[in-house]
């Protein structure tokens, strides 16, 4: 124990949220922001203690959307959990599908055909683009931009959702990937339509940036606000654009080499300050990189089967064992941890939700900031409550 005591002092400085002393004689104002508070992306509460307008304590309260995903999945077959994963992060159902399929494939040792891998990459990157665009839109909405950036983001999102719908049948809850492949094959017409949409995306991002990036109000409100230091980010398990906004070069697409990401040339944008603006810009730049990946994938997609021939839909029972599969979802590291006891249902089914873990540092980022900034910092984390509470 002695080792722990001496060493934990070294990290104590950044391991706990710093304590901010109220400096006025005035009493603290306790405000409960949420759970229906307009700013909280749904149902989330922050118990904030304010000294004037300054935040001196902030406790997030979760669970308003706890839908027992894990419990339901433990009572359902492996396949039946797939549509439920759509409803985790309901912006990015396809990446959720992929993460779950990846975990099950690891658990059962299935191979995925090449064409299916390409389709997965295309869908995942489209998902990433629409998620990042919407996130920025919502961030600006919270900044009071009366919805215009959000409208533009959703205008593009609708185009991408049309692609999803014409391929998978549903706009949001795609339920598309299967263990060992994908459900239906893409047609050439679909690929052409996708190419057309992808060709229009850079113009959209240019427009978005013209509207926002140089805006003085945006800069004044975002720069230097909600700073997250890289060492704290790593220690607190932050992942995704938020981690990269703090300057840590860690992209699971590059690190884990899952799927076929090794075949594509793309770069990982990194921020230097770790503030809201960096998170915003990292998202913008990631969208641009995603377009580069999409161009390559749409160019190279091979013909072939889309399902592992050994895969079966009914009566799927993996061997006993366990597996942890993770991918770089738009919000961060999305992992599925499965324990199989040989039955048709997973014995243990666990989602590693990036949204929840990224909120760990919410208090650290908000302390000492203005209460109006809390909303922005929260928006810049990019969470979806379905994934936070599951």
């Amino acid at each position: 124990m002695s080792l722990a005591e001496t060493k934990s002092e070294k990290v104590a400085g950044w391991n706990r949220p710093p304590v901010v002393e109220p400096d006025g004689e005035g009493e603290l104002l306790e405000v409960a922001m949420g759970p229906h508070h307009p700013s909280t992306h749904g149902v989330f509460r922050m118990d904030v203690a304010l000294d004037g307008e300054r935040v001196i304590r902030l406790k997030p309260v979760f669970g308003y959307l706890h839908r027992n995903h894990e419990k339901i999945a433990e009572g359902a077959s492996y396949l039946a959990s797939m549509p439920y994963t759509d409803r985790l992060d309901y912006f990015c159902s396809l990446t959720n599908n992929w993460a779950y399929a990846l975990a099950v494939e690891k658990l059962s040792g299935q191979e995925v055909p090449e064409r299916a891998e390409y389709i997965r990459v295309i869908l995942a990157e489209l998902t990433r683009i629409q998620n990042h665009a919407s996130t920025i839109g919502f961030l600006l909405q919270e900044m009071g931009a009366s919805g215009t950036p959000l409208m533009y983001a959703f205008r593009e999102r609708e185009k991408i959702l049309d692609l999803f719908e014409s391929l998978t049948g549903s706009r949001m809850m795609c339920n598309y990937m299967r263990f060992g492949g994908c459900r239906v094959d893409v047609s050439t017409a679909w690929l052409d339509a996708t190419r057309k949409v992808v060709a229009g995306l850079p113009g959209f991002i240019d427009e978005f940036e013209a509207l926002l990036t140089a805006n003085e109000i945006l800069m004044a409100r975002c720069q230097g606000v909600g700073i997250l230091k890289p060492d704290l980010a790593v220690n607190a398990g932050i992942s995704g654009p938020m981690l990269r906004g703090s300057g840590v070069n860690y992209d699971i697409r590059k690190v884990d080499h899952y799927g076929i990401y090794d075949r594509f040339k793309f770069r990982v944008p990194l921020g230097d300050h770790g503030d809201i603006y960096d998170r915003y810009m990292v998202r913008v730049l990631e969208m641009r990189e995603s377009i580069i990946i999409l161009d390559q994938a749409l160019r190279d997609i091979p013909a072939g089967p889309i399902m592992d021939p050994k895969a079966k839909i009914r009566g799927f029972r993996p061997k006993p064992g366990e597996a942890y599969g993770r991918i770089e979802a738009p919000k961060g590291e999305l992992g599925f941890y499965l324990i199989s006891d040989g039955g048709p249902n997973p014995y243990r089914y666990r989602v590693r939700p990036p949204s929840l873990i990224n909120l760990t540092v919410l208090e650290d980022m908000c302390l000492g900031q203005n209460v109006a900034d809390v909303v922005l910092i929260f928006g810049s984390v990019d969470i979806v409550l379905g994934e936070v509470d599951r």
Partner: protein
Amino acid sequence: MLGEGILKGMAETARNFFGSYVSKERLTTVEYPEERVPTAENARVFPFLVYDGAEWEAGMRCVACQICEKECPPKCILIDKSKDKKPDYAGKPQFYPTRFDIDISVCMSCQICVEVCPFEAIKMDTQFELATDDRFAGLLLDRKELAKSNEYYHTIHPTEATEVDSRLAEEKAKVEAKAKAAAEAAAAKAAAAPNPAPPADKPPAGGGD
């Protein structure tokens, strides 16, 4: 910080404002009740039951095997199996559902019932305008409301329906050939074979309770 970013943004919104009068790209509204976004061919909302021919009760493909009832993730399907049998599309006597209810107030449109159905009997509809003020009567679809003709299926999912039809025709031909062979063999042996076995790739109803 002289306000040029703000001006740039204002120019952008002005471009969109005036663009909305000239370009369809910048006025994306589809005025719903009058005009509609074309439905994607793969679109799915709620399941329906396919029947062949004109008579919905007689032509229903469903054989009440109850696989979909078991596999349905939110458990919104209820099937009662008949006591007697009636001939299916291939002329083979099969059970049929005396009750087939789908509670669309629970259904999550996941299409798993379609995927697991070995008889091509349940398919996804594209009809989404089902809002009602009556939760109990309006959102529980029974087999009569669920039954849609194969022609309807062809109108909403033409490619898929054609594929299904050809597959079924193939199987029917196979079954008929088999039956014919069996009949011939039987005729030869002068012994009647009561029921030809179902094809191997179509397991019989999983839930025979």
